[in-house]
């Protein structure tokens, strides 16, 4: 049998199924990073409240905690599995690779997650109901458990970028896959961002406190916390960038001018904001603080996540699964074989178990229908297929090209793997013909 283990295709028009995952991921990062950052902040505040006998700080923690329950533990705890869930629909073999390499890491994270979720309810609702020393210990354990969830997930998402060395391919070991070159820089980068977010969200709460003196004191503190977090984020971002694979550097060169411009703008704006919080806390009010959270989401996180997704190209996981779900190389440690050559021989029509019989052979009658299906199969994980689509629209990239030009491009660039950030897609000539014919009907 010539089939390979491809799954049915799910495609969401204009946006693309991969971006559905990206949207969920961006929301999750805001909520989850705030949650871990706040857990660390709570440990600091609870320590201070206990040592200095400051009952008013418990009140602040309670208010912050109630907000956190809704913001992070409703939105964050649902979007977390949500990323994974949408990934199964958008990129099944990519997420399957992660699951089958790291299932025990995920299961370990789940233990931390269970502790974290029941811990946050205890932490918030037991303020004033248990003695302060026990509450302090609870807060410490909550902070460590929250950071633990980061420590566990970070190796998996770093592996999505690349394992860092060749060891994993040889041994197939989850440890070699997990502790790659950019695992630690990535972790500290995110810890910095979490600390910053705990301050940014902390200001939403502190700026609404009725007690003027406490409001200013805590807003000032949140400003300082945010500054520290922002500095760590920048510092570790530079380390992180230096641990990326070569193909990412090619892409980075393309995107870097835009990134630098946006990041400098953001850095100036947020430095000013944090400075105002530290030196003139009375100017920080809840509407402003809330707007700044939205700015982080829209101007900071969304482009950042898009960039991270782009830098991984042409892979979705471990640099052995292409975004179009084809296995690109052998992984001897796991007994995994490349599928590129097989695909070149039998094409998607021969390789996919999900092609209806009437479409397995290209005829003049079904040529465009097959071409559409093949284009969806080969390209839609990275490109929306509608003209003017939002997700790297394919038709805009080949606008005005005729079928022959499109076919030539496919045969000389895609089939040879000449473009470093695109999968090597070698297909039988008839399949390229059908794809080119369909694309040429759509790109005018």
């Amino acid at each position, binding site marked *: *049998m010539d089939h*390979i*283990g491809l*799954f*049915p*295709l*799910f*495609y*969401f028009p204009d946006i693309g*199924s991969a971006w559905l995952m990206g949207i969920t991921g961006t929301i999750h990062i805001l909520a989850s990073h705030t949650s871990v950052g706040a857990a660390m902040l709570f440990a600091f505040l609870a320590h201070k409240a206990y040592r200095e006998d400051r009952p008013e700080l418990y009140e602040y923690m309670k208010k912050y905690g109630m907000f956190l329950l809704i913001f992070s533990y409703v939105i964050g*705890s649902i*979007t*977390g*599995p949500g990323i994974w*869930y*949408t990934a*199964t*629909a958008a990129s*099944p*073999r990519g997420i*399957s690779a992660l*699951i*089958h*390499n790291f*299932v*025990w890491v*995920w*299961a*370990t994270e789940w*233990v931390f997650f269970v*502790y974290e*979720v*029941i*811990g946050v309810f205890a932490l918030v609702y*037991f303020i004033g109901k*248990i003695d302060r*020393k*026990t509450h302090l*210990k609870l807060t410490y*354990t909550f902070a*460590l*458990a929250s*950071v633990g969830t980061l*420590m566990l997930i970070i190796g998996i998402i770093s592996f999505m970028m690349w394992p860092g060395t060749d060891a994993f391919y040889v041994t197939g070991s*989850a*440890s*070699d896959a997990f*502790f790659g*070159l950019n*695992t630690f820089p990535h972790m500290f980068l995110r810890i910095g961002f979490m600390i910053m977010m705990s301050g940014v969200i902390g200001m939403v709460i502190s700026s609404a406190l009725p007690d003027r003196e406490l409001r200013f004191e805590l807003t000032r503190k949140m400003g300082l916390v945010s500054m520290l977090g922002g500095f760590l984020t920048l510092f570790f971002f530079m380390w992180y960038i230096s641990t990326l694979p070569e193909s990412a550097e090619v892409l980075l060169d393309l995107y870097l001018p835009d990134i630098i411009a946006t990041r400098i703008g953001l850095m100036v704006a947020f430095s000013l904001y944090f400075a105002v919080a530290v030196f003139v806390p009375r100017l920080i009010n809840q509407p402003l603080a809330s707007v700044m959270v939205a700015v982080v989401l829209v101007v900071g996180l969304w482009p950042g996540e898009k960039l991270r997704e782009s830098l991984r190209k042409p892979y979705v996981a471990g640099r052995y699964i292409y975004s179009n779900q084809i*296995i690109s190389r052998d*992984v001897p440690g*796991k*007994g995994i*074989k490349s599928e590129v050559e097989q695909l070149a021989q039998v094409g998607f029509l021969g390789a996919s*178990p*999900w092609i*209806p019989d*009437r479409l397995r052979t290209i005829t003049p009658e079904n040529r465009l229908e097959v071409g559409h299906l093949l284009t*969806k199969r080969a390209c839609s994980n990275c490109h929306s297929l509608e003209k003017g689509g939002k997700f790297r629209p394919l038709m805009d990239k080949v606008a005005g090209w005729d079928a022959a030009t499109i076919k030539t491009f496919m045969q000389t660039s895609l089939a040879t793997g000449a473009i470093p950030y695109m999968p090597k897609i070698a297909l039988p000539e008839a399949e390229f013909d059908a794809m080119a014919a369909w694309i040429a009907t759509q790109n005018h």
Partner: protein
Amino acid sequence: MDAATLNLLRDPAGVPFYPVVFQALYVLTFALHAAFVLLSLGSMGLSLFGATRQGRDPHWKILTPHLIQTGKLSVSILIVLGVAPLLFTQVIYDPNWYVTNALSGVWVFAFIYLLILGYLTYYWYYYANKKGSSSNVLVGTVSFLLLVFAGVLMHNFAVESIQPDQWMQWYAPQGVVDTSGTNFHIQPIRLAFLVSLAIPVVGIFLQNYSQFLSTRNDFSKEYLGFVSSMGTKFASIGLIISAVLYAFWTLEAGVLLHPLSLATVAGVVVLLLLAIKNSNSYITTGVLVVVALLISSVREYIKYQIMIDVGYNIYDYPMNIDWPSVIMFLLTFVFLGFTGVAFITTMAWNVGKTQGVFDAQNHTATRRLASVTLWILVAWCLFYFAWGMMVLFKNVLG
């Protein structure tokens, strides 16, 4: 779908441990998840009734906010517990999991946001009821419907996943490929049975609630008697309804006379007797846990058998055992999982039993559990960094 194709859809990396272990973990964690799904459904539904009565009935005035709070906590716990069965099932049943998600991709995406919206609305309901707002019932109903629909979507994914003979037809009806991910299929009897379990679950919860608070003198005997008796009614009537639907479901699935099924029926009978007697609801709860595990096992057996019939055997899944990560999970699960959960539940139990502040410094078990949990976490983090550094040194410098 033929056996060769189904087996081809397995991940080429293989599974990192014995498939039966993943299957057992799936059964266990699904039972825990389902228990909180049913508790949230039952407490939420009953709280809506209570919200219409609390203005004129002092008992409902006390009970309704407690039910709302129970629903709120349960939804959070069901979400976190629900992650585990999803994780374990896809390790061994890849074809079922990934095909279903692609066939219903739009619903997968919708599920996430409906759940968020439903839960956020639930918080709105909680605060509206707390403030005595007249909109509480309306808001609560909207939340309830959203969360129930999210549950129906999960049911849709589950029943699609056990119909491999239909997948190709659903993906390409009449040979025309449909990539819209809009497939939606339900099995009414199976759904009705699972939903009906919310009635006995909330009934046994009410019995527990009543027994737990009986040691506190700020709740009247009359009130606790009212709750307890309502719990007994819910538990007994609910169990009878569920038993009838269970018989229809297992008959439809062809497993009515399977030993697991008969054991479940025996468990339900014991549960019914204990619930009616209501002398110690904690024992009833213990039996309920056993019955939940049995139902989860029956559910898994149905799926396993369907897949065996089409030539897919999870026990034949190629293995690439990864001992370090297996050991990490087991140690974390046993040491942190048990100690940590024991710490918080012991503390919660004592807080609930205490009027005023619970001083855990005078309670040896809580005090020690707090310290041990903290030290386990510190040791875990140190070990993590040591392990990571060792691996990196080996791979980069070695």
